[in-house]
């Protein structure tokens, strides 16, 4: 009798076991208990998460051990479902990128099954060895490490901070840079950084008057002779950027970017306050190519200069404002890398190449743009684009109140500008001329485009500030504005609404004053630019 009862009990247990299993796996065909951390999940985590989620890196916590992962399993499921982690913005097209960090669908399925099974650890013998990182530098010991000369204090709370810092390089000879790795100390707070060359170290020693190193804004781009002419050149000298989670890549083959002798590197850093005060004193690791590249990289920005002349002017409340611009390649090129830039209300960003035979290649397609994750995407194999290929960039902006990232609630009209609350928008394709002899042709073509977009910008601004009229900054107007009668226009004498834009256009030496010489240079340039054509 006892035996019968026990059998009955065992049968009941078995039945309920199955019931439990069915309840927890839903419609899964397999029992979930076959998925364990050690046998299946650890490998995925080590491959796709640990690079950032380990001590000393940008991830807020480590994802290495069973405890690390199982205690955060629900959060991990949520961020996978929301496609928030691993951070990766381009949607799949026919183009493959070498640095794609996403989990494959089968990896996501395995992870979900493991969670449904209650996160079993599995046999220790099956546990893979966590990846080892021999040096803090992903690409190995750099050829040169430059540290920020002074620390910068990031406040615990408040709005995001944008700050440019000079990293003194001042090398005696030209160098070719094949990769840059950025190591911030305020890792949780640094959201992205962009690297620029400061030719001749013009911004060396420059700082805002707030007792902290570095300066606001990007006015260093207008240095080097004439403000308007130097901007395209200085931007073309960009050295790339950093976002957390991005693996620094060496440029393919012998490609490298020029760091001219006696130049510095300016890093424009975007900080998110983290809730506690942080100290930033980043280091840059530079990896040099042993010799100049056989072919030089040419950045093609569509629209040019972050959309300065593209007429970006988004009415308040509009959720589907579209900007389109295209450029036809004058020569055959090879394309290596692509990346975009826009601010908070941009939602979609795409660059499509239409080849002369009508073939379309979707070089970049982002349908949920996020300024925080602007990245460079390296093509799996260089893409050949023949002369006559049309590169079309489409940008879509959402300036409605339904866009949580809208800097203004209620929404306001948002126009092109350098502040993060203004907008920009462009996609940059890095190419080489298929035949290096054609390079000057595409370089000058790209430069002309940039000049043209500035010309369009000036026209629209001249129309807007009607008073600056046919003779921009004529004597009468300057006299009117120049309240202290010193012949220069100080920052506080400029009309508040156009102040930053005017300084960007006119203030070549970055002292926040438009002096008599700069006024005359500006007038002359505007005359030149509007006369050409």
């Amino acid at each position, binding site marked *: 009798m006892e035996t019968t009862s026990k059998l009955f009990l065992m049968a009941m247990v078995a039945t309920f076991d199955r019931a439990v299993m069915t309840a927890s796996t839903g419609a899964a065909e397999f029992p979930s208990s076959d998925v364990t951390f050690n046998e299946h999940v650890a490998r995925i985590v080590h491959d796709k998460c640990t690079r950032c989620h380990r001590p000393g890196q940008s991830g807020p916590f480590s994802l290495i051990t069973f405890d690390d992962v199982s205690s955060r399993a629900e959060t991990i499921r949520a961020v996978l479902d929301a496609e928030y982690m691993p951070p990766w913005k381009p949607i799949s097209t026919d183009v493959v990128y070498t640095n794609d960090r996403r989990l494959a669908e089968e990896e996501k399925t395995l992870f979900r099954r493991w969670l449904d099974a209650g996160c079993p650890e599995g046999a220790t013998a099956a546990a893979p060895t966590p990846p080892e990182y021999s040096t803090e530098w992903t690409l190995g010991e750099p050829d040169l490490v430059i540290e920020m000369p002074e620390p910068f204090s990031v406040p*615990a709370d408040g709005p995001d901070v944008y700050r440019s810092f000079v990293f003194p390089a001042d090398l005696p000879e030209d160098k070719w840079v094949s990769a840059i790795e950025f190591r911030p100390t305020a890792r949780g707070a640094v959201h992205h950084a962009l690297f620029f060359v400061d030719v001749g170290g013009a911004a060396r020693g420059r700082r805002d008057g707030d007792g902290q190193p570095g300066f606001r804004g990007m006015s260093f781009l207008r240095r080097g002779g004439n403000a308007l002419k130097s901007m395209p050149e200085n931007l073309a000298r960009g050295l790339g950027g950093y976002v957390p989670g991005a693996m620094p890549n060496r440029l393919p083959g012998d490609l490298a970017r020029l760091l001219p002798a006696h130049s510095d590197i300016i890093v424009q850093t975007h900080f998110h306050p983290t809730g506690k005060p942080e100290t930033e004193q980043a280091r840059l690791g530079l990896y040099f190519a042993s010799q100049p590249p056989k072919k030089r990289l040419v950045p093609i920005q569509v629209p040019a200069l972050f959309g300065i002349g593209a007429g970006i002017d988004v009415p308040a409340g509009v959720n589907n404002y579209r900007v389109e611009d295209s450029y036809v390649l004058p020569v055959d090129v090879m394309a290596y890398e692509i990346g975009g830039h826009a601010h908070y209300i941009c939602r979609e960003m795409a660059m499509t190449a239409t080849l002369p035979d009508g073939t379309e290649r979707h070089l970049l397609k982002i349908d949920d743009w996020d300024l925080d994750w602007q990245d460079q995407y390296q093509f799996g194999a260089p893409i050949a684009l023949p002369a006559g290929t049309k590169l079309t960039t489409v940008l879509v902006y959402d300036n409605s109140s339904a866009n949580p990232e809208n800097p203004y609630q209620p929404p306001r009209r948002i126009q092109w500008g350098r502040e993060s609350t203004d907008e920009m928008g462009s996609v940059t394709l890095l190419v080489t001329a298929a035949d290096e002899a054609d390079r000057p042709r595409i370089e000058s073509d790209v430069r002309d485009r940039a000049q043209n977009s500035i010309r369009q910008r000036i026209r629209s601004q001249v129309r807007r500030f009607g008073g600056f009229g046919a003779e921009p900054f004529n004597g009468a107007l300057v006299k009117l504005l120049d309240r202290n009668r010193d012949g220069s226009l100080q920052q506080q004498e400029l009309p508040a609404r156009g102040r930053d834009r005017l300084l960007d256009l006119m203030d070549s030496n970055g002292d926040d004053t438009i002096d008599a010489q700069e006024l005359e240079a500006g007038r002359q340039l505007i005359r030149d630019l509007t006369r050409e054509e």
Partner: protein
Amino acid sequence: MIQTEARVLADVVRELAKLSVGVAVAACVTLSHAAEPLAKPTTVTPTIEANDLYGVAVSIGKGQRTKLTVVIFITTDCPIANSYHPTIEKLRRDYAGQDCQIVLVHEQPGTTTEAALTHAKDYAIAAPILLDKDHAIARSVGATVTPEAVVVDGQGMIRYRGRIDDRYATFGKKRPQATRHDLQDAMVAALQGKQITPTETKAVGCLIRLESSP
């Protein structure tokens, strides 16, 4: 013989009871993934009695020291929860004189007193801090996210549960500043004896894994 059978039968019943708990837990796990959450507690029963990191007794529920207790769930390393400490500290200061206490509760398994003290120092936290080793506090007030806030009145009634404000719309979608201050609004309404609307919002942040062992 009959006695033996009876005992075996009792065993069977006990086993079945355990199993149905198992099924219920499994069902909870499954359901918690669905859009519709399970019914959440409306009162704190029994009153939560615990010592904070500094050895001071804290009670949450009927008989608590203050008219209102705001319980906010955190971890040492949830970036969204951490970004709220300046806001939480400001709320604590602003309402300290109004018969209202804010209590922070750690939900990451394995958080030691030492780690929590270091974290409190880093983020300049002045509120009492509890370690919720087996998620008992989170369960008893129905919290599932860090940072999630629960407002408990002197009768042990849960008056508000959800986000602190609407700064985070979802993962990676952050407003430049909050446009709704749901927790503060709830605190003000509760202190003035007015109706709170809404009484429940969705907190955005890290998920508390309730079924995990400490």
